[in-house]
């Protein structure tokens, strides 16, 4: 089986080299097939090595086992997903981003605030904010409210910094043009500066998707009701049910990627005019 794994690796690598350097190197087909082949190869080799070397289930279950556990336990994993993602991460994400945008508009209006709050915000954005999780869990209880609160705190500062940077991204000429149209502050904000800030804001939105899931899961390590993805991971690790842990991780990975993908899709629809999206 180990030999077979080696053979699979060589064949797949040769196929990918041929695809990447051969006549089809620039086609869309090659661009999608090559990563897929690579991912599949990793999965096949994983499966073969685990079975060939008879690695104990506790250390690394084979992908097929993970998939079957995932299917068999979907009735457990679905409520976990709802608890952690829909209730914890998503509500915190929306509240946090909303608050950050409102704060950014206020901060942008007053230069004093911008000069004072922005360095502080930059500093806080780089901090290990997961550390607030035990405190917030103590304040808001074990249910999803405390998870949402952790997510709000984690998402807030990156979003604030990005939005403030975005609101400043208009040229003097553009603002003067708005003045000649007789536009007031709010009209300029709505029609010129918020749209101009969108690329920056989406940068923040995208960073925040990952942070939101991390926050919701880590907060559950500090205490949770008897469901949720973080809870499932800690209890299953305790029971050495590694196949279930891996299924939760697969769910988390798919959720994270889908969430990011959804935000990126909205970005593409809303900021089609930006140079980085022009064909």
């Amino acid at each position: 089986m180990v030999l077979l794994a080696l053979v699979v690796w060589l064949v797949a690598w040769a196929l990918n080299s041929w695809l990447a350097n051969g006549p089809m190197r620039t086609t869309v087909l090659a661009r999608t097939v090559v990563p897929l082949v690579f991912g599949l190869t990793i999965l096949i080799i994983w499966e073969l090595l685990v079975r060939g070397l008879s690695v104990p289930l506790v250390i690394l279950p084979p992908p097929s086992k993970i998939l079957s556990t995932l299917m068999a336990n979907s009735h457990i994993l679905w409520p976990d997903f709802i608890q952690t993602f829909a209730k914890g991460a998503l509500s915190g994400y929306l509240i946090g981003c909303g608050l950050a945008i409102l704060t950014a508009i206020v901060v942008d209006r007053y230069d004093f605030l911008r000069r004072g709050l922005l360095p502080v915000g930059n500093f806080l954005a780089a901090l290990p904010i997961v550390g607030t999780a035990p405190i917030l869990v103590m304040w808001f209880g074990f249910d999803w409210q405390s998870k949402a609160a952790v997510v709000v705190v984690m998402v807030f500062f990156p979003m604030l910094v990005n939005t403030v940077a975005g609101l400043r991204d208009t040229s003097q000429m553009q603002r003067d043009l708005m003045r000649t149209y007789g536009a007031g502050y709010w009209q300029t904000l709505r029609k010129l500066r918020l749209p101009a800030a969108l690329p920056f804001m989406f940068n923040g939105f995208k960073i925040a998707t990952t942070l939101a899931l991390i926050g919701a899961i880590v907060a559950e390590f500090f205490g949770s009701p008897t469901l949720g993805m973080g809870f499932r991971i800690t209890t299953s690790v305790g029971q050495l049910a590694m196949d279930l842990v891996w299924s939760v991780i697969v769910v988390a990975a798919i959720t994270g990627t889908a969430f990011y993908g959804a935000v990126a899709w909205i970005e593409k629809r809303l900021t089609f005019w930006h140079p980085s999206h022009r064909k």
Partner: protein
Amino acid sequence: MRNLGPILTVVAVIVGLWYIACVPMNVQEVLTNAERAGEVVQPEGASTRRDMSRIGLAFSNSDLLGESWSTDRARLPSPHQVVAELWSSTWDEEVNGRRGIVNSGTLSNRSLIYHGWITLGATVVGFLIGSGLGILLAVGIVHSRTMDMSVMPWAIVSQTIPIVALAPMIIVVLYSIGVEGLLPKAVISAYLSFFPVVVGMVKGLRSPDAMQLDLLQTYNASRSQTFWMLRLPSSVPYLFASLKIGIAASLVGAIVGELPVQRGGLGARMLGGSYYGQTEQIWAALFFAAAIAAVLVWFIGWVERRTMKLMGAEA
């Protein structure tokens, strides 16, 4: 330093708000203690007050709130309590404590310096492994088209995955094959700092434009010469930007990695504090972690400035 005034004002306002917030946050415990001490509290009985609004309670008993900033195990300890805890668990514990470094020759296991040192060790080892591997992979990606097309999409996708979910499992799995102590935490740190470095470094190594690459081609430069003389120098700013993200992520990884194994470290300290309701301890650990993060990011920035100066960039 033009910004110093506004920054100090903002910090002062935050500290002020914190002091004000202590009153409603701690009002239940404060009033219970006051009632035990024989004061008359409106309304009587801790159980009748439990479901009432905290702000309302604070207003109806405004003369009994003196304890708000000094209760033990407060829901929200006041700033000076946190500072006192920081002081007593760093300097005081080490210099005057029985187990401190002055009296016993080793760091006290009750001091934040001891726990911070454990976390810092795991962070730095993990960061070095992660960023080293990240740079190597980036070099591979830039030089092999096959690797680029196979690995790069996965590297980007993997950044959208909440990797910390893996942390408890990595610890347990490594423990079951006999690896424990610093290394499992370092693995998590390395994993978290790995992908930002890969993505940033690939961007950096690709940053020379076609004109510069063509110039080196007319000089008949070999691939390795191009790499050492053009690609590597021009990737430096990108590298440092991603190193800063990477080291902050490493610290988070080390802290999260300390949650499942209670063998010291700031993460263990936070979890211990939340088990026993020692809120000052959590806050002190949090601020200590913040200080470590700030110093680490500052240190990378300092190395960056030195490197850029040596490379002849304008300061």
